[in-house]
């Protein structure tokens, strides 16, 4: 069964762009342009995730989010906003949203985040070990092995690897890494994340015949066995 996404967005062009992307990615998407309709849809029907514009007519996105949460609906909500400043993300998350994305954005960024939200929502049991192929991370001893060989990782590399392992086989964008691993706003002028990735890659992939940490052109990175 294909997953259902509710899109609350009043701008027709943006809505078309997102709907087209969602459908190409195999989602079923419903679209409303008004906040009140959004609230009605979100609380009366079952969705896997909601993409909500911050400023929609009828009722603004934050109020809809609060109302949806007040109605006891736990569907993951991603807020889209043209308000780019630092405070906005916090305000959005405080209102009960699960993620926050600033316009303009690339569809790959939105897709990566949606995947992430829906995985998170599926609720997994507490794990003590994470792995990908022959790479394994023991969460209790913080020990990393690949093909039975112990790898020496710095704490920050461990943190990064853990994030990748928890998002295995999914695209992780630079922005997601900075925001979620370091609480830091993405700065396009720097190679901050690329530097961290290349160091991590050197440790986990160098000397092994099959690379696990892949660069996804135009989007970010993916940790998976498949190339």
């Amino acid at each position: 069964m294909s997953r259902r996404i509710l899109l609350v967005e009043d701008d027709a062009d943006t809505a078309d762009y997102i709907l087209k992307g969602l459908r190409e990615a195999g989602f079923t998407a419903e679209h409303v342009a008004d906040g009140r309709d959004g609230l009605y849809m979100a609380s009366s029907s079952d969705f896997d995730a909601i993409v909500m514009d911050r400023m929609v007519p009828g009722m603004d996105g934050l109020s809809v989010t609060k109302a949806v949460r007040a109605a006891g609906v736990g569907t993951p909500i991603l807020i889209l906003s043209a308000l780019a400043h630092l405070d906005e993300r916090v305000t959005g998350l405080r209102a009960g949203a699960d993620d926050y994305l600033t316009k303009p954005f690339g569809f790959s960024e939105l897709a990566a985040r949606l995947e992430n939200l829906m995985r998170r929502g599926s609720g997994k049991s507490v794990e003590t070990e994470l792995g990908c192929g022959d790479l394994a991370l023991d969460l209790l001893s913080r020990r990393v092995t690949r093909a039975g060989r112990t790898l020496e990782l710095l704490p920050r590399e461990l943190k990064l690897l853990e994030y990748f392992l928890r998002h295995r086989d999914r695209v992780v964008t630079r922005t997601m890494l900075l925001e979620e691993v370091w609480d830091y706003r993405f700065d396009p002028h720097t190679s901050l994340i690329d530097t961290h990735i290349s160091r991590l890659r050197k440790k986990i992939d160098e000397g092994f015949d099959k690379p696990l940490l892949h660069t996804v052109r135009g989007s970010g990175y993916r940790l998976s066995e498949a190339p």
Partner: protein
Amino acid sequence: MIGRPSLRGARPATLALVVAAAVAVVLAVGLMAVDVAGERIIASRQHLVAETARDYFVAFAHEEGLDAMARALDHRARTEHGAFEYAVFDNDGRRIGGSTLLTAEALPAPGYATRTIGDADYEVLVQPMSVGGTLVIYENLADRRGFHRAILGAVGTTLLVSLAIVAAVALWLGGLLVRRAHGIADAAEKIAAGDLSARAPVAGVDDVFDELAVAINAMLSRIEELMTGMRTVTDSLAHDLRSPLTRLRGALSRAQEEGLSPDARLGLIAEAQGQNEQVLATFAALLDIARAESGLSRELMAPLDLAELVRDLGDLFEPVVEDAGQRLAVVVPEGPAAFTGHELLLRQAVGNLLHNAARYAGPGATITLGLEPADGEFDLVVADTGPGVPAEQRGRVVERFVRLDEARSSPGSGLGLAIAAACAKLHGGRLVLEDNHPGLRAVLRLPVAVEPHQGTVLPLRSR
């Protein structure tokens, strides 16, 4: 010049005229009072003289007889020429001595009376005597009036002189007040005409006008600071947005050319994307600064651990610093450093300082990221051993968009230090750039548990 009738109506001369008129009215009333009182005093004095003479002559007649008295009066009339003349009449109505002014028939009833005789006015005292006959004393009023006029003249002159002095003082004082007020109004008009450097004059006499001028000037300085900031933003925004937008357009139009290999096309698109992101980052940074400066971000202040923040950022930046051929030393005191602040903005601010250090310090430099707790404040320090920034340029680099010229072409919006400065201000502190001997030492000085300030606050004058 813009007309402001309400402000400009009060000319010093007008003010002096009003004061002088008021004083003149008061003086006129005073002069009238002096006139009435003087008249009364002179009259009673002259009556006293007349009555003393009367008593003398009545006693004289009583002792020496009427004839002797008549001779004495004749003698007196020949030898004395004062205001007073005397005459004596016998019981038959014949004048037997003294002045010939009136005949017996023309004599008024006993007591005082006023008569015009010839050209002159006289006050006539008619006194019948117990020895018989009537004593008449004439007082020529010309003397009395002359005396009265002299007194009035003296008083009047005094009053006129006072009036002149008052008018002069009013003119001077009025001129002073109006000049002071106009000084402030002039400054306001210059500002309105666009000259933001105009300031209200401060005379240095510590009066109410000085107080007003100082307060207005402080306000103007703040406004000028903001306006200059705005102007720099407009100028630099044009530069910082136009360059990436131009490169973006260039990349896109080249990507449209025919006969390009798919890889080359993708490369151009990636380049366009990079430029686009630079534009977006510039906007985001501007919004952050605007929010921090306006104090709107204050609602997101929360307790946090500065030590953890510093260690985290050290973690994040160490690989970049190392790749630049530099060394990063993180110096944090043991244990947590509790602070209430805007965590995201603080991370951004310190991150920007680290960026700058990594970018400008050059290979081989050591960058120190430190947290230094001091009395009532925390210093977040990013120091490098690079070439540093000349002292005279340190203030300038904090401004929005200002990059030292040689670095102008390098990427970066030039907003990094401005964000750090705005962040410090939001927390009630400041960004200090110092000499690290060698290199630059940037310090975010954050006071603990102090109400963050709302902008330039005027010291309240104690009265």
